[in-house]
């Protein structure tokens, strides 16, 4: 019982993700600034922003549904933290695991988007509503390729649990190469999930101000931004667990955690590089791109893995 509470509240749960979210945001912002030939923020900037937002007045629009308006940031934060409990970080086994937790993780990551949608929709402002609808429309574009890409390695490993997958790939290191195509597709889909350029359509500031978050202020906005940061960390962690499960066989948990952190920062750096390279696509272009290129590629990965499963020795 005490152990479970420790997992949820301290490591790898709330407290750890809280700090990690700040660091991830800082790395993202600083790298982006350097790519754009700017100096970038000092290391404490994300924390300072958070404290500032917390201390600001919390305004709830008159027309908004107050209960949902307040509850949704909480739900988003909770849903973005929960998946980490099923992702192996310090050994081959996650804090909790059961056969089928991969579905739960994907589901929880979708719930955050649903929370943004509901929060935006019940703000009753035009910008929020358009942003919310865009957020949901975009969901249908990237979700399918992302799910297929993450399920394909699971098929090869013949397990529906992340811990099981990690231990399978650690015992068959060469099999990792089968999933490279899926990794690339999943990385691009993740850009859509995290709403980063070129897929930051739901919060395109020059069109719809801040999208679903337009009406949020003060502590609620701080919570939403924190959940965005944590979503980035957990999303990337999922990718690390599925596609880069290296070194989890080692004996020292500290070394494993260090390897995990290095991999996460590597992927964040790639995401930041991509987001400073492109212009924002339009919603129709984004959906076209996802269904025309990403979904068939993801399907190809599934087919390849199904064939390999029959061919390769176990």
């Amino acid at each position, binding site marked *: 019982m005490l152990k479970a509470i420790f997992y949820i509240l301290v490591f790898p749960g709330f407290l750890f993700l809280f700090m990690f979210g700040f660091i991830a945001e800082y790395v993202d912002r600083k790298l982006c600034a350097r790519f*754009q030939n700017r100096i970038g923020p000092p290391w404490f900037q994300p924390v300072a922003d958070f404290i500032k937002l917390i201390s600001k007045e919390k305004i709830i629009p008159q027309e908004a549904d107050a209960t949902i308006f307040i509850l949704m940031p909480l739900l988003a934060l909770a849903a973005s933290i929960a998946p980490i409990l099923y992702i192996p970080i310090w050994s081959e086994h996650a804090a909790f695991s059961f056969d089928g937790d991969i579905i739960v993780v994907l589901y929880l990551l979708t719930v955050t988007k649903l929370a943004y949608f509901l929060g935006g929709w019940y703000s009753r402002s*035009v910008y929020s509503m358009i942003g919310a609808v865009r957020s949901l429309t975009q969901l249908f574009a990237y979700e399918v390729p992302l799910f297929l890409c993450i399920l394909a390695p699971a098929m090869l490993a013949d397990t529906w649990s992340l811990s099981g997958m990690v231990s399978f790939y650690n015992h068959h290191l060469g099999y990792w190469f089968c999933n490279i195509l899926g990794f690339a597709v999943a990385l691009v889909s993740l850009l859509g999930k995290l709403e980063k350029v*070129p897929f930051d359509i739901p919060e395109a500031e*020059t*069109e719809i101000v801040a999208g679903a978050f337009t009406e949020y202020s003060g502590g609620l906005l701080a919570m939403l931004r924190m959940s965005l940061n944590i979503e980035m960390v957990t999303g990337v962690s999922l990718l690390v667990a599925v596609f880069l499960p290296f070194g989890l066989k080692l004996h020292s948990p500290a070394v494993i955690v260090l390897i995990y952190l290095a991999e996460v920062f590597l992927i964040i750096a790639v995401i930041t590089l991509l987001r400073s*390279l*492109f*212009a*924002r696509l339009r919603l129709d272009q984004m959906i076209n791109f996802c269904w025309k290129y990403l979904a068939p590629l993801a399907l190809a990965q599934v087919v390849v893995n199904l064939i390999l499963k029959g061919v390769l020795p176990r």
Partner: protein
Amino acid sequence: MHDPRDVQVPIGPQHPALKEPESFLISLHGEKITDATIKLGYNHRGIEKGCEERSYIRDLYLVERICGICSHSHSTCFVQAVEEIAGLEIPPRAKYIRTLISELERIHSHLLWLGVAGHEVGFDTLLMYTWRDREVVMDVLALISGNRVNYSMNTIGGVRRDITPKQKEEVLKATGILEERTKYYIWLAQNESTLLERLSKVGTLSRDDAERLGAVGPTARASGIAHDVRKDDPYAAYAELDFKVITANQCDVYGRTLVRLGELMESYSMVRQIMQKLPDGPISIKAPRKIPAGQAVSRYEAPRGEDFHYVRSNGTDKPDRVKVRAPTLANIQAVAKMLEGGYLADLPIVIAAIDPCFSCTDRLISLRQTDAQSKNTATWESLRLKGIEWYKSKGIDFSSLNKKLAESL
């Protein structure tokens, strides 16, 4: 035509896509724009009226502040009209210096536009890069005139500052750097796939529509109309310079980008020619304080298009009437046409593509009494009285202060 399911989205008067207050009321069907209503008049500053209250020399500084980007354009356009009425022929060196500043201004304005366009399509890296490079030309302008934005170079009868050989070198050096960078941006605009996706086939304005709606400047030239005041009706030293009028046939935002980038390259070549041909001699001639009665119209190719000033004098040291038609006013009608049938996501870039300057455009206001059918137009004096009364009703009374001021004098 109006579908009840359509959503009305107000873009402006306050909106992050707009740098100045202006209202675009958009009807949306899903993500498609079905109707756009443009409302001007949020930023009227009474500059034309202000010009009538001041002497010609003081007017120069006022018209320079019509626009923060093309400040030299407005002051040159105004001073050309005044010089025409007074019958002044300015020295050739002054003409060349005016042309130099005007081309440097075009360079800084077009680089600024490129960055804004990048920001509107979510390509912030382009914004950061172009604005960094824009600093080079801003530094050159500051070196020559002492100012980054309002150069105060013009005076009636010439210019106020000369160019030293040292400055000449600096200008040529900066031109070289900028030319390299611009070549890179041209390559980028033609090859970066997401940028191409966002710019081409967006905000189309056919040649016929551009002519019918009276578009000017790069907006018209991107629709294939080779109209450029510098070529059609040369002023300053443009008749002696060799340059091409850049046009494009794409008729969309991509075309407008190519035209502006092409014009940048032409501007660099013009700056070099000016430096080569710069004649010796005085930079200004003495101008009379009182301008004889008469009227004149002056045209000028500002970075955003044709600028137009009308000045009427009455023999005193103050103009009788000044009328300014900024290029944005000519282009704003075309925006509604460009937006039709487009996507909401394209709205910022379509508006930005005409390089709008709304505060330059908001010029005229006419107040009519709303009661009965009275056709009385509010006069300057009645507006002034109304203002005083309004403040009194709010408990703010300046009359005692005015009395004190009068006694102390």
